[in-house]
């Protein structure tokens, strides 16, 4: 077993060597611009792009023509939301999203609010899922878009996509989902779930960074987006710019591999994840799982170790790469807004660790990580005045703290 161990696969994943192999020819030998229509260099590049388009469409049950290439999921989310807001401005000015969305969605919505759009940020229940009744009540005749993520990047919970899609379709509202964490991990079907627009990223599924895609429905209904990047009119006019051919070949290969291996891989990851969870729960008291285990990505575990601060825990397991919802580890010095949205209290957000298992993690690594975390949490609890108070039977919620 090699140290350090990487268990932060929601942040990014390594490129699978088979994906890299599929990309290699397009850097040097087959380097053409896929928009060059008059020579073989261009045709070969175009062939690679069209092959990838089919591979990507296949993993989400779409057709190749419905795939628009972008630089990643952040751009995809921007294009989807701003593109709809602009294109359908005459139809309405209201967007519905959720409090636990990725910043690429939330900050895009905030930008649109400044431009005069109305945005509803649905709260989530304690299990991390949106309440369908609240969603239903939020829809008005001015609503043009519902944007709710497929799987959450921190707590891995899977939103009720089928129900949301059905509701959106019935009410004639477009449905966009940020499926960055879901595609390649769980089966996704845009038709079965009435998804109109869907964001994809390559580097979360063993593809390269800097490339992503947006699924844009062409039939029933035909979705139109106002381009956010102007230029040569590539990608059906929705996204100009010379295509990143090696990256796109990589995204395509990553999708094909993920689709083929998903049944086996998701079982293996769920087993590893559950082993990790069981070890931690057996070794420690006062441990809380954030978000429902019932509707969840197979590779995600988000746990709060009460009375222990997340950054100090990361320091103690410094040969394991994971992330924390603790304020001390965030750029903003605020604890995770996703965990806060669950309503469990800021203290549990400060104590949380996100484990993101991946294709290259082994059972031996899980054993090592579980033992190490149990050991360090115990050590830090010896240091924790809160754990001492808890053991003395003091109710910490009733203490007068000197907040600073």
């Amino acid at each position: 077993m090699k140290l350090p161990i990487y268990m932060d696969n929601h942040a990014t994943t390594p490129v699978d060597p088979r994906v890299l192999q599929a990309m290699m020819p397009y850097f040097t030998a087959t380097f053409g611009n896929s928009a060059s229509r008059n020579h073989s260099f261009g045709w070969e590049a175009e062939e690679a792009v069209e092959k990838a388009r089919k591979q990507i469409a296949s993993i989400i049950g779409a057709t190749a023509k419905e795939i628009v290439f972008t630089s990643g999921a952040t751009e995809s989310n921007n294009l989807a939301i701003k593109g709809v807001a602009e294109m359908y401005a005459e139809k309405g000015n209201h967007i519905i999203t959720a409090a636990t969305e990725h910043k690429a969605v939330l900050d895009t919505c905030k930008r649109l609010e400044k431009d005069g759009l109305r945005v509803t940020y649905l709260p989530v229940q304690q299990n991390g899922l949106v309440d369908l009744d609240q969603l239903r009540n939020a829809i008005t005749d001015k609503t043009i878009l519902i944007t709710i993520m497929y799987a959450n990047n921190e707590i891995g919970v899977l939103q009720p996509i089928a129900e949301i899609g059905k509701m959106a379709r019935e009410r004639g509202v477009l449905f966009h989902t940020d499926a960055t964490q879901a595609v390649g991990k769980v089966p996704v079907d845009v038709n079965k779930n009435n998804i109109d627009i869907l964001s994809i990223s390559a580097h979360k599924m063993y593809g390269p960074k800097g490339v992503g895609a947006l699924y844009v429905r062409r039939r029933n209904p035909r979705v139109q987006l106002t381009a956010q990047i102007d230029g040569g009119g590539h990608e059906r006019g929705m996204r100009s710019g010379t295509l990143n051919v090696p990256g796109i070949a990589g995204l395509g290969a990553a999708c094909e591999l993920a689709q083929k291996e998903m049944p086996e891989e998701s079982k293996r990851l769920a087993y590893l994840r559950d082993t990790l969870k069981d070890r931690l729960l057996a070794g420690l008291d006062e441990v809380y799982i954030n978000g429902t285990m019932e509707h969840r990505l197979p590779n995600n575990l988000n746990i709060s170790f009460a009375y222990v601060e997340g950054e100090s825990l990361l320091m103690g397991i410094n040969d394991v790469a994971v992330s924390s919802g603790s304020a001390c580890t965030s750029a903003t010095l605020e604890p995770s807004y996703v965990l806060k949205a669950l309503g469990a209290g800021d203290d549990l957000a400060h104590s949380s660790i996100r484990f993101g298992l991946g294709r290259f993690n082994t059972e031996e690594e899980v054993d090592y990580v579980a033992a190490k975390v149990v050991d360090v949490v115990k050590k830090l609890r010896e240091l924790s005045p809160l754990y001492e108070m808890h053991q003395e039977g003091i109710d910490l919620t009733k203490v007068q703290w000197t907040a600073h």
Partner: protein
Amino acid sequence: MAYSNKVLDHYNHPRNVGSLDKSDPNVGTGMVGAPECGDVMKLQVKVNPDTGVIEDAKFKTFGCGSAIASSSLATEWLRGKTVDEALEIKNTDIVNELSLPPVKIHCSVLAEDAIRAAIGDYKKKSESRPQVSTNA
């Protein structure tokens, strides 16, 4: 973010972890911070009432590595100082000793607050003591 060697040393080998008897009249206890802010420090001093010298200091901290290191360092510095000397410890001394980056300065502020709270608690106890004895 990289931690300084001194922060790592205090994190890996925290000095003077533990608790003193809160009800001891010679023990001063300071608890500062809040769980929802991500750090709580408990700092205790045991003072020789005749000399005013801090004979023992203990801490327990819920917080990041820099918060743990700041309070661990504080207990080291407190031992052997008189209560008045202890009040001269400034958060900037802790920042310099541990090479804390700007985002971690609040850890040193919290440690200074904890020192003041512990000494304040001891002083309150010692001031009320003679009154109790004369009234009795």
